[in-house]
Protein backbone atom coordinates (compact mmCIF):
# COMPACT_ATOMS: atom_id res chain seq x y z
CA UNK A 1 0.00 0.00 0.00
CA UNK A 2 1.32 3.38 -1.01
CA UNK A 3 0.69 5.02 2.34
CA UNK A 4 2.69 2.49 4.28
CA UNK A 5 5.40 2.58 1.71
CA UNK A 6 5.69 6.35 1.87
CA UNK A 7 5.57 6.40 5.64
CA UNK A 8 8.21 3.76 6.15
CA UNK A 9 10.44 5.31 3.53
CA UNK A 10 9.93 8.65 5.20
CA UNK A 11 10.91 7.21 8.55
CA UNK A 12 13.99 5.63 7.07
CA UNK A 13 15.06 8.91 5.55
CA UNK A 14 14.25 10.46 8.88
CA UNK A 15 16.76 8.19 10.57
CA UNK A 16 19.51 9.44 8.31
CA UNK A 17 18.44 13.01 8.90
CA UNK A 18 18.62 12.30 12.60
CA UNK A 19 22.26 11.27 12.27
CA UNK A 20 22.94 14.69 10.77
CA UNK A 21 20.79 16.70 13.07
CA UNK A 22 21.71 15.27 16.42
CA UNK A 23 25.34 16.24 16.07
CA UNK A 24 24.32 19.76 15.12
CA UNK A 25 21.97 19.92 18.06
CA UNK A 26 24.72 18.82 20.42
CA UNK A 27 27.02 21.52 19.09
CA UNK A 28 24.39 24.12 19.59
CA UNK A 29 23.71 22.89 23.08
CA UNK A 30 27.35 23.25 24.03
CA UNK A 31 28.56 26.24 22.07
CA UNK A 32 25.36 28.02 21.11
CA UNK A 33 26.47 28.21 17.49
CA UNK A 34 25.36 26.74 14.21
CA UNK A 35 28.08 24.97 12.27
CA UNK A 36 27.70 26.03 8.65
CA UNK A 37 30.27 23.49 7.57
CA UNK A 38 28.15 20.60 8.82
CA UNK A 39 27.23 19.51 5.32
CA UNK A 40 30.91 19.11 4.54
CA UNK A 41 31.35 16.54 7.28
CA UNK A 42 28.64 14.58 5.49
CA UNK A 43 30.54 15.03 2.25
CA UNK A 44 33.83 13.88 3.71
CA UNK A 45 32.14 10.78 5.02
CA UNK A 46 30.65 10.01 1.64
CA UNK A 47 34.01 10.40 -0.06
CA UNK A 48 35.96 8.46 2.54
CA UNK A 49 33.58 5.51 2.41
CA UNK A 50 33.44 5.51 -1.37
CA UNK A 51 37.03 6.20 -2.32
CA UNK A 52 38.73 3.96 0.22
CA UNK A 53 36.58 1.05 -0.90
CA UNK A 54 37.21 1.96 -4.53
CA UNK A 55 40.99 2.38 -4.40
CA UNK A 56 41.88 -0.24 -1.87
CA UNK A 57 39.27 -2.76 -2.81
CA UNK A 58 38.24 -3.21 0.79
CA UNK A 59 34.82 -4.30 1.86
CA UNK A 60 32.47 -1.41 2.54
CA UNK A 61 31.90 -2.84 6.00
CA UNK A 62 35.45 -1.85 6.82
CA UNK A 63 35.37 1.52 5.15
CA UNK A 64 32.22 2.51 6.98
CA UNK A 65 34.02 2.95 10.29
CA UNK A 66 36.80 4.71 8.35
CA UNK A 67 34.27 7.27 7.22
CA UNK A 68 33.08 7.70 10.78
CA UNK A 69 36.63 8.22 11.98
CA UNK A 70 37.37 10.67 9.17
CA UNK A 71 34.37 12.71 10.19
CA UNK A 72 35.41 12.61 13.81
CA UNK A 73 38.92 13.74 12.96
CA UNK A 74 37.65 16.63 10.90
CA UNK A 75 35.25 17.66 13.63
CA UNK A 76 37.92 17.51 16.29
CA UNK A 77 40.34 19.53 14.17
CA UNK A 78 37.71 22.15 13.42
CA UNK A 79 36.99 22.68 17.07
CA UNK A 80 40.59 22.75 18.19
CA UNK A 81 41.81 25.07 15.46
CA UNK A 82 38.90 27.38 14.94
CA UNK A 83 36.48 27.40 17.82
CA UNK A 84 38.61 28.45 20.74
CA UNK A 85 37.84 32.15 20.32
CA UNK A 86 34.25 31.37 21.16
CA UNK A 87 34.92 30.75 24.77
CA UNK A 88 38.38 31.76 25.70
CA UNK A 89 37.51 35.43 25.99
CA UNK A 90 39.04 36.43 22.69
CA UNK A 91 38.92 40.17 22.84
CA UNK A 92 38.53 41.28 19.30
CA UNK A 93 35.36 39.37 18.42
CA UNK A 94 34.02 40.02 21.89
CA UNK A 95 30.27 40.39 21.75
CA UNK A 96 30.10 39.09 18.23
CA UNK A 97 30.97 35.48 18.98
CA UNK A 98 27.94 34.15 17.16
CA UNK A 99 28.87 36.14 14.11
CA UNK A 100 32.44 34.86 14.29
CA UNK A 101 31.10 31.32 14.24
CA UNK A 102 28.90 32.10 11.25
CA UNK A 103 31.74 33.57 9.24
CA UNK A 104 34.35 31.00 10.08
CA UNK A 105 32.18 27.93 9.55
CA UNK A 106 30.76 29.44 6.38
CA UNK A 107 34.29 29.99 5.08
CA UNK A 108 35.28 26.49 6.17
CA UNK A 109 32.38 25.12 4.19
CA UNK A 110 33.51 26.97 1.07
CA UNK A 111 37.08 25.85 1.64
CA UNK A 112 36.22 22.17 1.96
CA UNK A 113 33.86 22.11 -0.99
CA UNK A 114 36.36 23.75 -3.30
CA UNK A 115 39.31 21.80 -1.96
CA UNK A 116 37.58 18.52 -2.71
CA UNK A 117 36.42 19.87 -6.05
CA UNK A 118 39.98 20.71 -7.03
CA UNK A 119 41.86 17.82 -5.47
CA UNK A 120 39.48 14.97 -6.18
CA UNK A 121 37.44 16.41 -8.98
CA UNK A 122 33.86 17.46 -9.58
CA UNK A 123 32.64 14.07 -10.77
CA UNK A 124 30.45 12.06 -8.50
CA UNK A 125 31.36 8.71 -7.02
CA UNK A 126 28.77 6.12 -6.25
CA UNK A 127 29.24 4.41 -2.94
CA UNK A 128 29.30 0.64 -2.65
CA UNK A 129 26.24 -1.08 -1.22
CA UNK A 130 26.61 -2.79 2.11
CA UNK A 131 24.36 -5.62 1.09
CA UNK A 132 24.09 -7.14 -2.35
CA UNK A 133 20.36 -7.79 -2.36
CA UNK A 134 18.65 -5.09 -4.30
CA UNK A 135 15.11 -5.87 -3.37
CA UNK A 136 13.76 -6.91 -0.03
CA UNK A 137 10.09 -7.39 0.61
CA UNK A 138 8.64 -7.11 4.07
CA UNK A 139 4.92 -7.54 3.79
CA UNK A 140 3.55 -4.74 1.61
CA UNK A 141 6.74 -2.76 1.87
CA UNK A 142 9.69 -2.93 -0.47
CA UNK A 143 13.18 -1.43 -0.25
CA UNK A 144 16.72 -2.13 -1.30
CA UNK A 145 18.83 -4.31 0.94
CA UNK A 146 21.35 -1.56 1.45
CA UNK A 147 18.75 0.96 2.48
CA UNK A 148 17.34 -1.35 5.11
CA UNK A 149 20.76 -2.29 6.39
CA UNK A 150 21.82 1.35 6.49
CA UNK A 151 18.64 2.28 8.33
CA UNK A 152 19.34 -0.45 10.82
CA UNK A 153 22.87 0.78 11.38
CA UNK A 154 21.65 4.34 11.74
CA UNK A 155 19.12 3.28 14.32
CA UNK A 156 21.70 1.36 16.33
CA UNK A 157 24.14 4.25 16.24
CA UNK A 158 21.45 6.71 17.29
CA UNK A 159 20.52 4.55 20.24
CA UNK A 160 24.19 4.23 21.15
CA UNK A 161 24.63 8.00 21.03
CA UNK A 162 21.55 8.49 23.13
CA UNK A 163 22.87 6.09 25.74
CA UNK A 164 26.29 7.68 25.61
CA UNK A 165 24.99 11.16 26.23
CA UNK A 166 22.59 10.02 28.91
CA UNK A 167 24.67 7.62 30.93
CA UNK A 168 28.35 7.74 30.15
CA UNK A 169 30.91 9.80 32.03
CA UNK A 170 31.64 12.15 29.15
CA UNK A 171 28.01 12.18 28.15
CA UNK A 172 27.07 13.64 31.46
CA UNK A 173 29.93 16.13 31.34
CA UNK A 174 28.53 17.26 28.04
CA UNK A 175 25.06 17.64 29.47
CA UNK A 176 26.48 19.72 32.30
CA UNK A 177 28.38 22.01 29.96
CA UNK A 178 25.31 22.42 27.78
CA UNK A 179 23.28 23.54 30.74
CA UNK A 180 25.79 25.84 32.34
CA UNK A 181 29.22 26.30 30.91
CA UNK A 182 30.62 28.47 33.64
CA UNK A 183 29.23 26.31 36.36
CA UNK A 184 30.56 23.19 34.74
CA UNK A 185 34.06 24.60 34.48
CA UNK A 186 33.93 25.70 38.09
CA UNK A 187 32.97 22.17 38.97
CA UNK A 188 36.16 21.00 37.35
CA UNK A 189 34.83 19.81 34.02
CA UNK A 190 37.17 20.33 31.12
CA UNK A 191 34.81 22.33 28.96
CA UNK A 192 37.24 22.61 26.09
CA UNK A 193 37.51 18.84 25.97
CA UNK A 194 33.75 18.51 26.07
CA UNK A 195 33.47 20.88 23.12
CA UNK A 196 36.05 18.89 21.20
CA UNK A 197 34.24 15.64 21.88
CA UNK A 198 30.94 17.08 20.77
CA UNK A 199 32.38 18.43 17.55
CA UNK A 200 34.11 15.15 16.87
CA UNK A 201 30.95 13.18 17.52
CA UNK A 202 28.95 15.53 15.35
CA UNK A 203 31.43 15.16 12.53
CA UNK A 204 31.48 11.40 12.83
CA UNK A 205 27.70 11.09 12.76
CA UNK A 206 27.35 13.37 9.75
CA UNK A 207 30.10 11.47 7.95
CA UNK A 208 28.33 8.23 8.73
CA UNK A 209 25.16 9.60 7.19
CA UNK A 210 27.08 10.64 4.10
CA UNK A 211 28.64 7.21 3.82
CA UNK A 212 25.40 5.31 4.32
CA UNK A 213 23.59 7.38 1.74
CA UNK A 214 26.34 7.43 -0.87
CA UNK A 215 24.98 4.46 -2.84
CA UNK A 216 21.77 6.44 -3.21
CA UNK A 217 23.13 9.99 -3.44
CA UNK A 218 26.49 10.09 -5.18
CA UNK A 219 29.43 11.73 -3.48
CA UNK A 220 30.07 15.09 -5.11
CA UNK A 221 31.82 18.16 -3.66
CA UNK A 222 28.58 19.96 -2.88
CA UNK A 223 26.59 16.89 -1.85
CA UNK A 224 26.51 18.18 1.70
CA UNK A 225 24.52 21.31 0.96
CA UNK A 226 21.05 19.81 1.02
CA UNK A 227 21.50 17.50 4.01
CA UNK A 228 22.95 20.49 5.85
CA UNK A 229 19.93 22.65 5.19
CA UNK A 230 17.67 19.80 6.25
CA UNK A 231 19.53 19.46 9.51
CA UNK A 232 19.26 23.18 10.17
CA UNK A 233 15.52 22.91 9.65
CA UNK A 234 15.34 19.94 11.96
CA UNK A 235 17.45 21.44 14.70
CA UNK A 236 15.43 24.64 14.69
CA UNK A 237 12.15 22.77 14.47
CA UNK A 238 13.07 20.40 17.25
CA UNK A 239 14.51 23.16 19.36
CA UNK A 240 18.17 23.97 19.32
CA UNK A 241 20.02 21.81 21.78
CA UNK A 242 17.25 19.29 22.33
CA UNK A 243 18.25 15.77 21.31
CA UNK A 244 14.82 14.19 21.56
CA UNK A 245 13.46 17.21 19.72
CA UNK A 246 15.94 16.72 16.92
CA UNK A 247 15.12 13.03 16.72
CA UNK A 248 11.39 13.57 16.51
CA UNK A 249 11.70 16.45 14.08
CA UNK A 250 13.94 14.34 11.84
CA UNK A 251 11.33 11.66 11.54
CA UNK A 252 8.59 14.21 10.94
CA UNK A 253 10.56 15.93 8.21
CA UNK A 254 11.41 12.63 6.58
CA UNK A 255 7.78 11.61 6.40
CA UNK A 256 6.63 15.08 5.31
CA UNK A 257 9.11 15.16 2.47
CA UNK A 258 8.22 11.66 1.43
CA UNK A 259 4.56 12.58 1.08
CA UNK A 260 5.28 16.06 -0.22
CA UNK A 261 7.42 14.82 -3.06
CA UNK A 262 4.60 12.67 -4.30
CA UNK A 263 1.56 14.76 -3.52
CA UNK A 264 2.73 18.36 -3.84
CA UNK A 265 5.68 18.98 -6.08
CA UNK A 266 8.83 17.13 -6.87
CA UNK A 267 10.73 20.12 -8.20
CA UNK A 268 10.23 22.30 -5.20
CA UNK A 269 10.66 19.51 -2.65
CA UNK A 270 13.80 21.07 -1.26
CA UNK A 271 12.13 24.38 -0.66
CA UNK A 272 9.70 22.84 1.84
CA UNK A 273 12.44 22.64 4.39
CA UNK A 274 13.53 26.22 3.80
CA UNK A 275 10.03 27.56 4.13
CA UNK A 276 9.42 25.53 7.26
CA UNK A 277 12.69 26.87 8.62
CA UNK A 278 11.71 30.47 8.08
CA UNK A 279 8.25 29.93 9.53
CA UNK A 280 9.60 28.22 12.62
CA UNK A 281 12.27 30.86 13.18
CA UNK A 282 9.69 33.56 12.96
CA UNK A 283 6.89 32.14 15.00
CA UNK A 284 8.44 29.61 17.31
CA UNK A 285 12.15 30.31 17.41
CA UNK A 286 12.60 27.95 20.29
CA UNK A 287 11.23 25.12 18.22
CA UNK A 288 8.83 22.46 19.34
CA UNK A 289 10.87 21.36 22.29
CA UNK A 290 13.48 23.97 22.97
CA UNK A 291 13.59 26.43 25.82
CA UNK A 292 12.56 30.02 25.54
CA UNK A 293 15.52 32.17 26.39
CA UNK A 294 15.19 35.17 28.62
CA UNK A 295 16.85 38.38 27.65
CA UNK A 296 17.56 40.93 30.32
Amino acid at each position, binding site marked *: MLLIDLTVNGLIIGLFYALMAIGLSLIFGILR*IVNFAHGEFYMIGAYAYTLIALFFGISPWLTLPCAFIAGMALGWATER*LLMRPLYSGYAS*WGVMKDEYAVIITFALSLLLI*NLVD*KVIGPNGYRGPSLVATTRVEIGPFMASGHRLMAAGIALLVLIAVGLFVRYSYWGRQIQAVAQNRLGASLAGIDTAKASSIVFALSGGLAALAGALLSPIINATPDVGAFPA*VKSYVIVVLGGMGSIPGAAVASLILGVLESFGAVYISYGYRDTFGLVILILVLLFR*PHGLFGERSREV
Partner: protein
Amino acid sequence: MAVIFNDTRMRDRIQLVFSLGIFALVALLPAIVRNEYWQGVLIVSMYFAMLAAAWNLLAGYTGQFSLAPAAFGMIGAYVTGLLSYHFNAPPLVGIPAAVVVAAAIGFGLGRIVLRLRGPYLALTTLSFAEICRLVISNSIEITRGDLGLNVPGIFDHRLTWYYVMLGVLVVIQLGLYFLLRAPAGLYLRAIRDDEIAAASRGVKIVLWKTNAFTLSAAISGLAGALYGHFAQFVSPELGLLSQTGIIVSMVVIGGLTTLPGPIGGAFLVYVASEFLRDFGGYQLIVFALLVIIFARFFREGLWGFFRRAIERPGRRPAPAPSAAE
Protein backbone atom coordinates in the same frame (compact mmCIF):
# COMPACT_ATOMS: atom_id res chain seq x y z
CA MET B 1 54.54 62.66 18.66
CA ALA B 2 51.69 63.15 16.29
CA VAL B 3 48.64 61.23 17.24
CA ILE B 4 46.50 60.13 14.34
CA PHE B 5 43.68 58.02 15.65
CA ASN B 6 42.90 60.21 18.59
CA ASP B 7 39.19 60.22 18.18
CA THR B 8 36.53 58.52 16.15
CA ARG B 9 35.91 61.51 13.92
CA MET B 10 39.54 61.51 12.90
CA ARG B 11 39.52 57.77 12.42
CA ASP B 12 36.53 57.91 10.10
CA ARG B 13 38.05 60.78 8.15
CA ILE B 14 41.24 58.88 7.63
CA GLN B 15 39.29 55.88 6.48
CA LEU B 16 37.42 58.04 3.99
CA VAL B 17 40.62 59.57 2.69
CA PHE B 18 42.05 56.09 2.26
CA SER B 19 38.98 55.03 0.32
CA LEU B 20 39.24 58.07 -1.91
CA GLY B 21 42.87 57.21 -2.41
CA ILE B 22 41.88 53.78 -3.65
CA PHE B 23 39.34 55.35 -5.97
CA ALA B 24 41.92 57.78 -7.33
CA LEU B 25 44.25 54.88 -7.99
CA VAL B 26 41.54 52.94 -9.75
CA ALA B 27 40.60 56.04 -11.76
CA LEU B 28 44.13 56.31 -13.06
CA LEU B 29 44.58 52.62 -13.82
CA PRO B 30 43.16 52.68 -17.38
CA ALA B 31 46.23 54.67 -18.34
CA ILE B 32 48.26 51.52 -17.69
CA VAL B 33 45.62 48.89 -18.13
CA ARG B 34 44.69 49.16 -21.79
CA ASN B 35 43.47 45.61 -22.13
CA GLU B 36 39.67 45.59 -22.33
CA TYR B 37 39.45 42.25 -20.56
CA TRP B 38 41.23 43.55 -17.48
CA GLN B 39 39.23 46.75 -17.55
CA GLY B 40 36.22 44.50 -17.41
CA VAL B 41 37.69 42.69 -14.44
CA LEU B 42 38.02 46.00 -12.64
CA ILE B 43 34.44 46.90 -13.51
CA VAL B 44 33.18 43.64 -12.04
CA SER B 45 35.30 44.40 -8.98
CA MET B 46 33.34 47.61 -8.64
CA TYR B 47 30.11 45.59 -8.70
CA PHE B 48 31.47 43.50 -5.87
CA ALA B 49 32.75 46.57 -4.05
CA MET B 50 29.23 47.95 -3.95
CA LEU B 51 27.83 44.67 -2.66
CA ALA B 52 30.65 44.46 -0.13
CA ALA B 53 30.08 47.99 1.11
CA ALA B 54 26.38 47.30 1.43
CA TRP B 55 26.94 44.10 3.38
CA ASN B 56 29.49 45.82 5.60
CA LEU B 57 26.89 48.43 6.49
CA LEU B 58 24.49 45.73 7.55
CA ALA B 59 26.90 43.32 9.17
CA GLY B 60 29.92 45.31 10.21
CA TYR B 61 28.21 48.45 11.40
CA THR B 62 24.77 47.19 12.44
CA GLY B 63 25.74 43.70 13.49
CA GLN B 64 23.24 41.85 11.29
CA PHE B 65 25.21 39.13 9.55
CA SER B 66 22.85 38.37 6.73
CA LEU B 67 23.78 35.66 4.23
CA ALA B 68 21.67 37.20 1.47
CA PRO B 69 23.81 39.95 -0.13
CA ALA B 70 24.26 38.11 -3.40
CA ALA B 71 20.54 37.45 -3.54
CA PHE B 72 19.80 41.16 -3.54
CA GLY B 73 22.30 41.72 -6.31
CA MET B 74 20.53 39.00 -8.26
CA ILE B 75 17.14 40.56 -7.53
CA GLY B 76 18.30 43.95 -8.81
CA ALA B 77 19.75 42.40 -11.93
CA TYR B 78 16.57 40.44 -12.64
CA VAL B 79 14.23 43.39 -12.08
CA THR B 80 15.89 45.39 -14.78
CA GLY B 81 16.42 42.28 -16.89
CA LEU B 82 12.81 41.18 -16.73
CA LEU B 83 11.49 44.69 -17.34
CA SER B 84 13.51 44.98 -20.49
CA TYR B 85 12.85 41.40 -21.61
CA HIS B 86 9.09 41.45 -21.18
CA PHE B 87 8.23 45.12 -21.53
CA ASN B 88 11.17 46.57 -23.45
CA ALA B 89 11.69 49.00 -20.61
CA PRO B 90 14.77 51.19 -21.02
CA PRO B 91 17.53 51.07 -18.40
CA LEU B 92 16.45 54.48 -17.14
CA VAL B 93 13.31 52.76 -15.92
CA GLY B 94 14.81 49.39 -15.13
CA ILE B 95 17.61 50.55 -12.88
CA PRO B 96 15.55 52.76 -10.54
CA ALA B 97 12.91 50.03 -10.48
CA ALA B 98 15.59 47.55 -9.44
CA VAL B 99 16.61 49.81 -6.57
CA VAL B 100 13.03 50.28 -5.41
CA VAL B 101 12.11 46.60 -5.61
CA ALA B 102 15.30 45.48 -3.90
CA ALA B 103 14.77 48.08 -1.19
CA ALA B 104 11.19 46.96 -0.68
CA ILE B 105 12.17 43.32 -0.38
CA GLY B 106 15.03 44.30 1.90
CA PHE B 107 12.59 46.22 4.05
CA GLY B 108 10.33 43.20 4.25
CA LEU B 109 13.13 40.81 5.09
CA GLY B 110 14.47 43.27 7.64
CA ARG B 111 11.11 43.43 9.38
CA ILE B 112 10.85 39.67 9.38
CA VAL B 113 14.23 39.07 10.99
CA LEU B 114 14.01 41.84 13.57
CA ARG B 115 13.99 39.55 16.55
CA LEU B 116 16.72 37.27 15.23
CA ARG B 117 20.44 37.37 15.86
CA GLY B 118 23.54 35.36 15.10
CA PRO B 119 22.89 31.86 13.77
CA TYR B 120 19.12 32.32 13.61
CA LEU B 121 19.50 35.44 11.47
CA ALA B 122 22.08 33.74 9.30
CA LEU B 123 19.87 30.70 8.77
CA THR B 124 16.81 32.74 7.91
CA THR B 125 18.59 34.99 5.45
CA LEU B 126 20.33 31.98 3.95
CA SER B 127 17.01 30.26 3.43
CA PHE B 128 15.57 33.42 1.94
CA ALA B 129 18.47 33.73 -0.45
CA GLU B 130 18.21 30.11 -1.54
CA ILE B 131 14.46 30.35 -1.99
CA CYS B 132 14.93 33.43 -4.19
CA ARG B 133 17.45 31.65 -6.31
CA LEU B 134 15.38 28.49 -6.60
CA VAL B 135 12.26 30.44 -7.51
CA ILE B 136 14.07 32.36 -10.24
CA SER B 137 15.69 29.16 -11.41
CA ASN B 138 12.43 27.25 -11.58
CA SER B 139 10.17 29.94 -13.06
CA ILE B 140 11.31 29.06 -16.53
CA GLU B 141 8.45 30.65 -18.44
CA ILE B 142 9.12 34.03 -16.85
CA THR B 143 12.86 34.06 -16.32
CA ARG B 144 14.13 31.37 -18.69
CA GLY B 145 15.52 29.73 -15.57
CA ASP B 146 19.15 28.69 -15.66
CA LEU B 147 19.49 29.79 -19.27
CA GLY B 148 19.52 33.36 -18.07
CA LEU B 149 18.29 36.53 -19.70
CA ASN B 150 19.93 38.78 -22.20
CA VAL B 151 19.95 42.37 -21.06
CA PRO B 152 20.56 45.38 -23.31
CA GLY B 153 23.74 47.34 -22.79
CA ILE B 154 23.90 51.06 -22.22
CA PHE B 155 27.30 52.39 -23.22
CA ASP B 156 29.31 51.49 -26.26
CA HIS B 157 32.68 52.03 -24.72
CA ARG B 158 33.99 49.98 -21.87
CA LEU B 159 35.77 52.99 -20.46
CA THR B 160 32.49 54.85 -20.12
CA TRP B 161 31.20 51.95 -18.03
CA TYR B 162 34.42 52.07 -16.06
CA TYR B 163 33.99 55.64 -14.96
CA VAL B 164 30.24 55.46 -14.52
CA MET B 165 30.55 52.50 -12.17
CA LEU B 166 33.42 54.16 -10.36
CA GLY B 167 31.39 57.32 -10.04
CA VAL B 168 28.45 55.43 -8.54
CA LEU B 169 30.81 53.65 -6.18
CA VAL B 170 32.29 56.97 -5.02
CA VAL B 171 28.84 58.39 -4.41
CA ILE B 172 27.84 55.30 -2.43
CA GLN B 173 30.98 55.47 -0.36
CA LEU B 174 30.54 59.17 0.37
CA GLY B 175 26.94 58.55 1.27
CA LEU B 176 27.94 55.82 3.69
CA TYR B 177 30.57 58.07 5.22
CA PHE B 178 28.10 60.84 5.92
CA LEU B 179 25.54 58.38 7.20
CA LEU B 180 28.04 56.88 9.61
CA ARG B 181 29.18 60.29 10.87
CA ALA B 182 25.60 61.37 11.46
CA PRO B 183 23.65 60.30 14.54
CA ALA B 184 22.38 57.41 12.43
CA GLY B 185 25.87 55.97 12.48
CA LEU B 186 25.87 56.08 16.26
CA TYR B 187 22.53 54.31 16.39
CA LEU B 188 23.64 51.51 14.07
CA ARG B 189 26.83 50.89 15.98
CA ALA B 190 24.99 50.99 19.29
CA ILE B 191 22.56 48.38 17.99
CA ARG B 192 25.49 46.26 16.93
CA ASP B 193 27.23 46.56 20.28
CA ASP B 194 24.28 46.02 22.56
CA GLU B 195 20.74 46.17 21.32
CA ILE B 196 19.25 45.99 24.78
CA ALA B 197 21.32 48.91 26.04
CA ALA B 198 20.63 50.87 22.87
CA ALA B 199 16.90 50.55 23.47
CA SER B 200 17.29 51.74 27.03
CA ARG B 201 19.05 54.83 25.72
CA GLY B 202 16.25 55.75 23.38
CA VAL B 203 17.53 54.36 20.08
CA LYS B 204 14.66 53.31 17.81
CA ILE B 205 15.73 49.74 17.28
CA VAL B 206 13.06 48.65 14.82
CA LEU B 207 13.50 51.73 12.67
CA TRP B 208 17.26 51.56 12.39
CA LYS B 209 17.61 47.85 11.95
CA THR B 210 15.07 48.01 9.16
CA ASN B 211 16.73 51.06 7.64
CA ALA B 212 20.04 49.22 7.55
CA PHE B 213 18.45 46.29 5.76
CA THR B 214 16.59 48.51 3.32
CA LEU B 215 19.57 50.66 2.46
CA SER B 216 21.87 47.66 2.14
CA ALA B 217 19.37 45.96 -0.17
CA ALA B 218 18.90 49.12 -2.22
CA ILE B 219 22.62 49.49 -2.82
CA SER B 220 22.91 45.82 -3.69
CA GLY B 221 19.98 46.09 -6.08
CA LEU B 222 21.58 49.06 -7.79
CA ALA B 223 24.84 47.18 -8.11
CA GLY B 224 23.06 44.18 -9.59
CA ALA B 225 21.13 46.26 -12.08
CA LEU B 226 24.24 48.06 -13.27
CA TYR B 227 26.10 44.78 -13.55
CA GLY B 228 23.24 43.31 -15.56
CA HIS B 229 23.45 46.05 -18.16
CA PHE B 230 27.21 45.85 -18.24
CA ALA B 231 27.47 42.10 -18.65
CA GLN B 232 24.34 42.18 -20.81
CA PHE B 233 23.34 38.91 -19.22
CA VAL B 234 21.84 37.79 -15.93
CA SER B 235 21.44 34.32 -14.51
CA PRO B 236 20.47 32.74 -11.19
CA GLU B 237 24.17 32.09 -10.63
CA LEU B 238 24.40 35.68 -9.42
CA GLY B 239 22.58 34.59 -6.29
CA LEU B 240 24.58 31.49 -5.46
CA LEU B 241 25.71 31.08 -1.89
CA SER B 242 29.29 30.98 -3.11
CA GLN B 243 28.83 34.52 -4.40
CA THR B 244 27.84 35.56 -0.90
CA GLY B 245 30.91 33.73 0.27
CA ILE B 246 33.04 35.87 -2.03
CA ILE B 247 31.43 39.06 -0.79
CA VAL B 248 31.95 38.07 2.83
CA SER B 249 35.57 37.18 2.04
CA MET B 250 36.16 40.57 0.53
CA VAL B 251 34.88 42.37 3.57
CA VAL B 252 36.60 40.18 6.14
CA ILE B 253 39.92 40.30 4.32
CA GLY B 254 39.72 44.01 3.66
CA GLY B 255 38.54 44.86 7.12
CA LEU B 256 35.10 44.44 8.65
CA THR B 257 33.53 47.58 10.03
CA THR B 258 35.85 49.92 8.17
CA LEU B 259 35.08 52.19 5.25
CA PRO B 260 37.96 51.22 2.95
CA GLY B 261 37.91 47.55 3.92
CA PRO B 262 35.14 46.33 1.62
CA ILE B 263 36.39 48.47 -1.25
CA GLY B 264 40.01 47.46 -1.02
CA GLY B 265 39.02 43.89 -0.28
CA ALA B 266 36.77 43.73 -3.33
CA PHE B 267 39.42 44.93 -5.76
CA LEU B 268 42.16 42.81 -4.25
CA VAL B 269 40.14 39.63 -4.02
CA TYR B 270 38.52 39.86 -7.41
CA VAL B 271 41.62 40.88 -9.31
CA ALA B 272 43.64 38.24 -7.50
CA SER B 273 40.99 35.67 -8.31
CA GLU B 274 41.35 36.49 -11.98
CA PHE B 275 45.09 35.99 -11.74
CA LEU B 276 44.60 32.73 -9.91
CA ARG B 277 42.16 31.63 -12.56
CA ASP B 278 45.11 31.46 -14.91
CA PHE B 279 46.78 29.10 -12.49
CA GLY B 280 44.00 26.60 -12.32
CA GLY B 281 41.11 28.05 -10.43
CA TYR B 282 42.21 27.80 -6.81
CA GLN B 283 40.74 31.17 -5.99
CA LEU B 284 37.88 30.13 -3.75
CA ILE B 285 40.17 27.87 -1.78
CA VAL B 286 42.66 30.65 -1.22
CA PHE B 287 40.03 33.16 -0.22
CA ALA B 288 38.17 30.84 2.06
CA LEU B 289 41.46 30.06 3.74
CA LEU B 290 42.27 33.75 4.02
CA VAL B 291 38.90 34.46 5.56
CA ILE B 292 39.46 31.75 8.14
CA ILE B 293 42.93 33.02 8.96
CA PHE B 294 41.87 36.64 9.11
CA ALA B 295 38.75 36.00 11.14
CA ARG B 296 40.73 33.80 13.52
CA PHE B 297 43.81 35.96 13.92
CA PHE B 298 43.41 39.33 12.23
CA ARG B 299 39.94 40.52 12.86
CA GLU B 300 40.57 43.97 11.48
CA GLY B 301 41.69 42.60 8.16
CA LEU B 302 44.18 44.33 5.92
CA TRP B 303 43.06 47.69 7.22
CA GLY B 304 44.25 46.55 10.64
CA PHE B 305 47.77 46.10 9.30
CA PHE B 306 47.69 49.53 7.75
CA ARG B 307 46.36 51.11 10.92
CA ARG B 308 49.01 49.57 13.09
CA ALA B 309 51.67 50.61 10.63
CA ILE B 310 50.80 54.28 10.68
CA GLU B 311 49.92 54.61 14.33
CA ARG B 312 52.97 55.86 16.15
CA PRO B 313 54.02 54.41 19.47
CA GLY B 314 52.70 56.13 22.60
CA ARG B 315 49.76 57.43 20.64
CA ARG B 316 47.26 57.42 23.44
CA PRO B 317 47.64 58.78 26.93
CA ALA B 318 47.58 55.68 29.04
CA PRO B 319 44.69 55.72 31.49
CA ALA B 320 46.40 57.14 34.54
CA PRO B 321 45.64 55.63 37.94
CA SER B 322 43.28 58.47 38.60
CA ALA B 323 40.42 58.58 41.03
CA ALA B 324 38.38 56.76 38.46
CA GLU B 325 40.47 53.60 38.55
